[in-house]
């Protein structure tokens, strides 16, 4: 059974604009699947559908074989525990009025009894927060700070720590490095790559930056105008059978 199955998903808005058309793909455990496309092509909408924060018109999304659409909020909870997200803008992903430690504790407290930690251990709050901060290579003293006292790259590390704190099976990374400068970008991508291996989790890595996707993922999907036009193993990126749009994207990076 696949970890995630997206079958014939359609999404349009009331004004008739079609955002996603017939999206089909599946993801295996421990895999990093890349999704690349220009802005407005529907990448982030797809992420929101998988996260169940927006509904869709047709098709189905199955997580470990279970349909997610139309479930009650209560019965969704075990799935929410297993699907976490890291978004593009870390400044808006952290509550400015909460100390870093309180933001980091939030998922653990939310999902309480559902959390079954393998990698981290929960002895005390301070100890747990310390482990999380260390894992994302931040000093333990940051626990007491507020988001505005951190740089963009540091804030993004905190949102990563928060996403991994309950050891989800799938993390959706929606442009996690795009708002950072190149040096922080490289550091964050390297951190994420290492974490996937230690934590045995899967990533859906969304980006407009083909080179970052190439670096992170094993498989790559290319999206254009709400349709997945190409899907292939990373090694086959430069093969001649690639879709013309994929080739166009490649040419922009050379």
């Amino acid at each position, binding site marked *: 059974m696949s970890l995630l199955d997206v079958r014939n998903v359609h999404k349009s808005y009331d004004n008739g604009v079609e955002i996603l058309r017939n999206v089909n793909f599946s993801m295996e455990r421990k895999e990093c699947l890349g999704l690349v496309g220009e802005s407005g092509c529907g990448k982030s909408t797809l992420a929101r559908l998988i996260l169940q924060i927006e509904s869709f018109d047709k098709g189905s999304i199955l997580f470990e074989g279970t349909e997610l659409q139309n479930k009650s909020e209560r019965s969704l909870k075990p799935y929410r525990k297993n699907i976490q997200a890291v978004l593009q803008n870390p400044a808006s992903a952290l509550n400015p009025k909460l100390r870093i430690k309180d933001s980091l504790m939030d998922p653990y407290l939310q999902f309480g009894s559902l959390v079954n930690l393998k990698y981290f251990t929960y002895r005390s709050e301070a100890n747990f927060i310390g482990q999380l901060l260390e894992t994302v290579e931040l000093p333990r003293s940051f626990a007491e700070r507020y988001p505005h006292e951190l740089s963009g790259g540091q804030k993004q590390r905190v949102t990563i720590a928060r996403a991994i704190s309950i050891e989800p099976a799938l993390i959706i990374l929606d442009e996690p490095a795009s708002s950072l400068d190149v*040096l922080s970008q490289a*550091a964050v991508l390297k951190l994420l790559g290492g974490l996937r291996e230690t934590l045995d989790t899967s990533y859906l890595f969304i980006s407009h930056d083909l*080179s970052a996707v190439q670096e992170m993922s094993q498989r790559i999907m290319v999206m254009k105008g709400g349709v997945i036009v190409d899907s292939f193993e990373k090694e086959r990126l430069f093969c001649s059978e690639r879709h013309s749009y994929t080739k166009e994207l*490649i040419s922009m990076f050379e």
Partner: protein
Amino acid sequence: MSILSVRQLHIMGKQNDIVKNLSLDVQEGEWFALVGQSGSGKSMTAMAICQLLAPNLQAKGEIWCGEKNLLTLSSSEIRKFRGKRLAYIFQDYQGSFTPFLTIGQHFDEYQRTHLNLSKKARRQQAVNALISVGLNEDIYGRYPFQLSGGQLQRVSISMALLLEPDILIADEPTTALDSVSSFKVLQLLSKLQKETGCAILFITHDLRHVRKYADRIAVMKDGAIIETGDKNRVLNHPQHAYTNELIQSSPSLRRIPFKLEGVSG
């Protein structure tokens, strides 16, 4: 001949120096790239050139544009330089436009400040400028929020080049755009530069954006330029460890030959 010459520029904040002893020369018609990570003082340098710094920041040194030292000019004198001799494009395209004015009204304000044209001539000039950056005539009547980021950035370029400035200061014009739009904007800038012959001071943190178009590169770190040189020299034989680090971290597509079908393919 250099169009813009910055000599020993210091920018001082309340507590610390933001830019220290910075000197650079931009030659006529060249694409000069100023590269560095966030907080290195790139934008502050750009802002100091036209006296656009916040009042709590002080600039010292000399900035020569032709026969004038821009730092010594009064606010009415510097206005004659802005737009006509020096023009800007900023990273934040949303902040460059007033949300309740149409694109046409933005053009009109700009033209009435700097030129003496009839209403009809102003409109014609604006429409021509929009067409020159690959936009449709109907953009003239639209509001900023009705345009995409890439389109707005094109409008700012067309407006910045309207008065044929000697130098265009482009402060991270593609950083907020996705890679497809930024590719198109860069291509457009390079085309327009060839047509108008204006120099470009291009500020970025991403070396990928300058690999193709820049003539010379200066690398900035902690408020000072640590390395300047011809593009190929800096990219292929960086002298400074930090430059090398920047080059290594800027991601590029790696052409890994596909081993299984490497021979046949």
